[in-house]
């Protein structure tokens, strides 16, 4: 059994007196796709953002690739090169075209030559189906297209793991499918992914594990089949009931 790529040990975070994460532990195996789900306020986005240091925690450890993450600036920057993130509101750089969005981090942070970075960038854009939009500005792209560029941008740094923070929540229904297709493709090709999402169809078909969170704790962790067929806890049952009622997928 290989070493887990990401290991979270008894992570705790408070906002004042309110507990956002309560001694959460989680192991992410390399090549696996883990889905974090749960009602809003359960701490799933907070947990995700702790994994690349966007959020700080009060107690516990995060270990990535065997190295514990300490909150020193230099370490954080190194960590972020290893772990990529895709945001709910895409956060593309509006003043740069799609290709430059993808290549700017490898060039500036990764110090790659422009020609190499652009070649790799075009490959990535082709992989997400947007090679012909390489020179369009984000303002000229649809939401789904922007999110696909964002995925290509995160991939450009060749991270060891990819984090997705509700990647399709800000998209209209037509665009959701095109983004999910890319994510399915990534998961099937062995990318280590941790995804916070409400898209249970994606979770059912592609995730290796589902972690259900509520009030700062992981209440249930199981493979998709068992989770959807027979959730163990009452809260998970209630949650799944609500999801099924609103979404046929």
């Amino acid at each position, binding site marked *: 059994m290989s070493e887990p790529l990401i290991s979270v040990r008894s992570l705790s975070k408070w906002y004042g007196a309110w507990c956002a994460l309560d001694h959460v532990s989680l192991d992410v195996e390399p090549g696996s796709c883990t889905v974090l789900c749960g009602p809003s306020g359960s701490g799933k986005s907070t947990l995700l953002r702790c994994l690349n240091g966007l959020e700080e925690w*009060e107690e516990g450890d995060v270990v990535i690739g065997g190295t514990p993450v300490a*909150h020193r*600036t230099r370490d*954080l920057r190194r960590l972020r090169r290893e772990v990529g993130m895709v945001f709910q509101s895409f956060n593309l750089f509006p003043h740069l075209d799609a290709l430059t969005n993808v290549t700017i981090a490898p060039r500036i942070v990764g110090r790659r030559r422009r020609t190499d970075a652009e070649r790799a960038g075009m490959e990535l854009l082709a992989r997400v189906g947007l090679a012909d939009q390489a020179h369009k500005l984000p303002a000229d792209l649809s939401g789904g297209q922007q999110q696909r560029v964002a995925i290509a941008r995160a991939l450009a740094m060749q991270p060891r793991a990819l984090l997705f923070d509700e990647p399709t929540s800000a998209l209209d229904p037509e665009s959701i499918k095109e983004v999910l297709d890319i994510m399915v493709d990534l998961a099937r090709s062995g990318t280590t992914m941790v995804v916070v999402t409400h898209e249970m169809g994606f979770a059912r078909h592609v995730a290796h594990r589902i972690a259900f969170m509520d009030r700062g704790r992981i209440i249930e962790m199981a493979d998709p089949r068992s989770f959807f067929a027979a959730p163990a806890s009452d809260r998970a049952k209630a949650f799944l009931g609500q999801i099924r009622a609103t979404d046929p997928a």
Partner: protein
Amino acid sequence: MLTTAANLMDEGGRAGRSGAPTPRQVRRRRAALLQQLVLLGALAVVAGLIVRNTVINLQARGLASGFDFLWQEAGFNVGFSLIQADASSTYGRIFLVGLLNSLLVAAVAMVAATLLGFLVGLARVSPNVPARLLSKGYVELVRNLPLLLHLLLWQGVILRSLPTVREALGLGGVAFLSNRGLYLPTPAAWSAVPLMLLTGAVAAAVAGLLLARRAHRRQELLSPHVAASIGGLVLALLVVTAAAIEWEVPTLKGFDYRDGVKIMPELAALIAALTLYNAAFVAEIVRAGIQSVGEGQHQAATALGLSPRLIMRLVIVPQAIRVMVPPMANQYAHLIKASALATVVGFPDLVNVFMGTALNQTGRAVEIVVLTAAVYLTLTAAVSVGTNWYARRVKLVER
């Protein structure tokens, strides 16, 4: 949103469960403290070097230090003063004279520029095409010329082309305009009757304002008839007062007019230039304010059946004013600072008289500069404090 990259890198943390800071936070706060100490230390070193150089240089030039010069006799006359001052006045008194002159210029120009600016601004958005074009032409012409050029134009060209004292333009026989100045009559003395009349006029005006405010609060409209009657009463009382008192009329004696008050051409040029220049900017602020009130407001008001004049007064103007206040305050601050241009035309304002003449005579560069800077910083700070107060007050009302 003021979250900066630095915040992201440092990860501003919150207290742990017990409320005590975690070791990580303690480390970070210590680092921040250290950085700030280093910064302040570096600044202290630079300041120290500057002070050292200054002291050496001052000694080398044989210049004394200290604020005691404020009680010394100045020994020069000031061309225009609101308070009593002559060659025997102290430097402290001269400071006051300059300050009051600056404030006078700023205040008069502020009022005049606001009035003119409002007129031009309203013309900019009026449906009357020639008015709109002419006001736009005025604004574009005036705005793109330096204020100093305006000033020199007024002083060197316009005012110099006024007639000489002998052939001064008479305005109603009580005021005279020449290239040496504008001469206005002043009241000679006050006696009981005119004082009573004046008090009555002031009381009527105040009563009228209070009435208007009360009506406004109850969302009533002050009837135009009542407003006209109060206005008429105030006007009548003022006219009778003016007729009843004795005036000192400027009369030509020898080479110049005596009696009454003389407004020197430098002051007039300064006020005229400041007014015309700033009015253009005020006009743009007014225009932007009125246009910022969405078309929807206008349509809704029309649908309610309000007349165009009422729409302006009740719907457009109150909202426009809210938008106008910050840039207007900015413009006033600019105006206060622009009054320092008096130096160029020789009008004795604070900078001219204190930072110019007084500094030349006493050589107390550092002290004089510190005092002058303190005055202007206080004035501009007062303007921004006033703006903030008004903005906050307006916010409450809006909610």
